């Protein structure tokens, strides 16, 4: 894994962890964690660590996470897998907002 790829992946993981920690409901938090696990599974478990992110605006963090996951496509990650991740992320947000 090249450094630039690791940086983007680390950002995505950090934003997903922040969304999970600041979710409104437990079900929403679990769904955000599931997206994080899916991203780690795509990379075979060899992932850079996440860093704590201060959340002021969850919607902005959500957009940053979406952008980071999309950017992984430029580093050779399978596009279908990334679309699945993005779909799971959207579903998690909907579930968190609904409940």
């Amino acid at each position: 894994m090249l450094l630039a790829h690791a940086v983007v992946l680390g950002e995505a993981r950090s934003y997903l962890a922040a969304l999970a920690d600041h979710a409104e409901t437990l079900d929403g938090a679990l769904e955000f964690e599931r997206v994080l696990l899916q991203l780690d599974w795509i990379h075979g478990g060899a992932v850079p660590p996440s860093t704590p992110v201060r959340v002021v605006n969850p919607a902005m963090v959500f957009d940053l996470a979406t952008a980071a996951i999309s950017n992984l496509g430029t580093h050779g990650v399978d596009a279908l897998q990334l679309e699945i991740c993005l779909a799971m992320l959207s579903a998690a947000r909907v579930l968190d907002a609904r409940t």
Partner: protein
Amino acid sequence: MTYGENVGVIREQLAALLRQHRIQQRLGGVALHRSEPETTIPEREAMGRILRCYRDATLNWCHQALEAVGPKNDVRKMTFRDRTPQDDLRHRLDLTLQDTGTSGLVPLDMLAMEHRYDLMVRWQSIARAAALGEHDFAGEVNAGSLTPAQAITVARDAADIIRGLAVLDVRYKHVPGWTPVPLLPQLTRAAERVSVTAHERVLDLSVEDLGWRPPATGPEGPQAAGVAGAVQAQSRLLVELGRFPTALNLRRIIHAQVEVSLEAERHARKTAPELVGGFAERASVYRQLVAQSRNLGGLAGAGGSAVAESQNAISRLKNLALAATTQRASLLELHRLFLATDARVATTIEQGLDERVYFVAVRLPRMTDQQINGIYRPRTRYAPSTTRLQPGLLPLVRDHLQPAPQPAPQRPHSLALRHDYEAAIAHRPPPRNGPRR
């Protein structure tokens, strides 16, 4: 059967044999209460040969025990001064077994045949226990799995059994078909040296709970209806956790346990309300564990099947409508399986961190050399975990997942058997003409 059960049978039967004298009478020979012998000399000779096979099988068990728990060194190349008492006993027993000229293995028909006399039956029980006990040394009773105190206990058991066989060998020397144990005086002295040396240390009788066990398998058959289906999946998960999972699979299993606890709580509200609090607390603990294990890394291991079974448990509970009282027994069983799963997960995490299979990401106190988007970032790398580096994970596991330590059982029956055996070795028959004046 465990090691304790097998060696207990050998000790018990040997103690009974050590209290028996006038061996030929016990094989149907001439006796004061019988005018005619019940068996002929050829018949007693055949019985003597069978007894010799049983004795050799017991010596073979002692040899396997000493081989299993002793260091893997060639005692033949060591001088007497270099050998420990245990090495010396192993060496003497090697020479003895070579001189007997037998393999020490009893034919299956001898283990299964019926005997007329109590003495023969007792010897057969000893040979059966010795044959069964061979599997223990391939299981958990070997040097790689035992503590030093447990290994000394097994060596002491072998030495005591050899001492008992030495006493019987002298008593049986006139039995037709019986051949004496070769090099008996040297073997006896070596066994006594081990017994005396081991007697001075504290024996660890917890080795009696170990032994060979068949590999665990989960419940077979089609998916059961209701919560029982989730119980099936959780049982299989517990079996699959016997294999070490990768860090990613462990995180997935931990994530699944949150959901299965929440679903179990939902079902328990009507049918088993006393379990609701426990399930909710379990979900909370595993939720914290999910957050603490995000930066856990490690590629060694498996665990795919365990992840699949954990997802099965969730889906079977989610697809189930809330029912009435029929699910209570299954929920109680699920609670019991949850406790076992928690203990297994705790052991896996502790062992993984201790043996450096799992790593955590740590932030180093310096920056990288390269700019990324104009920013120097702090360096991080994966390192073996210590409490200082990962302050939240291990305390969470130890405080909430590990079961409370149980006090060691006392084992009075085992100690009584050992004292009785020592008394039997030292036993002397009463004089024929009454006590001396």
